[in-house]
């Protein structure tokens, strides 16, 4: 790196400087917008130009968060929702990939189940909510089932398409070496589908959040989704806003967790 720096022409130095300046400008603008919005919101609320009973305000949100923290319930709610999401996400990804493998290995099964997948995929999953509640009770299990219902079918279809999209000649090459179906899968199909699986993972994180919050709306007694519904019912918009902000932060963190995982797992590809 250091002797590359020495060989940089003045033009290139200028270019790098420009790129760096642009980056700083973008970041500054981003932060400025956020700060401006928060200040505007707070000022409008303080001078009663908007009704903070309906719109809440940054200071009230902070107070609510502090209260939740003092009551000792803040992290419990976050933990409940996050663990439901993680379980839903892992189950969705693992089961989805496993089922895709089975459908890939048997074109008969793939053909048999194709219409089922299509119907299940187009069905609005929230309609299944009441069924899950009757089956699994109004608890975390139904919520995880909800998350699974949303992410599973998409995962199966994405990953199966990835498997089927592997170059025919690559498979022919393996056959010419005398590979059996399992070897072909392990050595060619799975590794060349890694980007597709990674994408499915990223989509799944988002879908799992949707499923879990939807599930919590329907049944739960704890969790961020519960806080949102409860806050809405008793007209505590402070609580609703605070929960939405927590949700945004948690979902972003988890998404970056997956990106981090991707970088660790696929460092050399």
């Amino acid at each position: 790196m250091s002797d590359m720096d020495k060989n940089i022409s003045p033009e290139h130095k200028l270019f790098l400087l420009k790129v760096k300046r642009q980056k700083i400008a973008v970041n500054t603008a981003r932060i400025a917008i956020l700060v401006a919005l928060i200040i505007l919101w707070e000022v409008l609320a303080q001078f009663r130009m908007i009704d903070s009973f309906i719109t809440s305000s940054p200071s009230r949100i902070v107070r609510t968060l502090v209260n939740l923290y003092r009551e000792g319930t803040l992290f419990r709610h976050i933990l409940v929702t996050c663990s439901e999401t993680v379980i839903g996400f892992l189950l969705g990804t693992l089961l989805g990939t496993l089922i895709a493998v089975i459908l890939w290995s048997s074109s008969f099964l793939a053909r048999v189940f194709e219409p089922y997948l299509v119907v299940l995929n187009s069905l609005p999953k929230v309609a299944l909510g009441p069924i899950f509640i009757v089956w699994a009770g109004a608890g975390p299990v139904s919520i995880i089932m909800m998350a699974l219902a949303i992410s599973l079918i998409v995962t199966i279809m994405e990953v199966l398409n990835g498997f089927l999209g592997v170059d025919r000649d690559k498979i022919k090459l393996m056959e010419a070496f005398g590979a059996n179906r399992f070897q072909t899968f392990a050595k060619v199909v799975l590794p060349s589908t890694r980007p597709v699986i990674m994408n499915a993972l990223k989509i799944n994180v988002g879908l799992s959040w949707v499923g879990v919050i939807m599930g919590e709306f329907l049944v739960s007694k704890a969790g961020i989704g519960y806080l949102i519904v409860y806050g809405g019912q008793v007209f505590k918009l402070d609580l609703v806003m605070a929960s939405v902000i927590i949700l945004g932060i948690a979902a972003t963190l988890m998404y970056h967790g997956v990106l981090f995982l991707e970088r660790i797992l696929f460092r050399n590809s």
Partner: protein
Amino acid sequence: MSDIVAVHNLGMKYHSLNGEIDALKNVNFTVKKGEFICIVGPSGCGKSTLLSLLAGLLKPTEGEVYIKGKKVSGASLDVGYMFQKDHLFEWRTIHRNVLIGPEIRRTLTDETKEYVLNLLKTYGLYEFKDKYPSQLSGGMRQRAALIRTIATKPDILLLDEAFSALDYQTRLAVNDDIYSIIKKENKTAILVTHDIAESISMADRVFVFSKRPGTIKNIYEIKLSCPQRTPLCSRDAPEFRYYFNKIWKELDVHV
């Protein structure tokens, strides 16, 4: 029996709901050990199908294929296959790429490893063995693909338009490169190509196929008077144009 490949009355029909496709019909030929055969023919006349049949990846609907006197049924261990794309696996280093064949056949002994390392050394890829395919040039990648193919010590190499993906300059160089490796390793080769000049420059004999259902229309024995028989030198031989015109007419291309 010096015929390493013998094809008797070979025919192949594909069946689909839209009907059946007569891909090959009545194909007969033999190939001697060490010979270099080129196959040219119109698009869709069954050339790739023929290679798949020779490799035992497809079952003929008629006739039979003999390799080293044994009838082919199922993937044959005596042939190696090369495609238009090199199909090196991006997630494996060059070293692990060229070892894939022995790995699949579970013949990954110290002796094979040694053999493969020697191939890498001989053909100038040893320094690149820990690099990934994307770090190599097109020509080097094709050379790596050839080493991967001969790592399982096949006697016969089947090359399906193996050079078509390369740009013209690289292609001429890779022609020479691959040709010399094949000759040095003493392999029998069957190359499918669309390029008449390429076929003449490399082949001992050129098989010209007819339109579908493909069958051998004519066989040209290529006799060139040039000091060394390398693809590049062959292109300068006085007889080159003669063969070119003959095969060109034979192919009867209309636009």
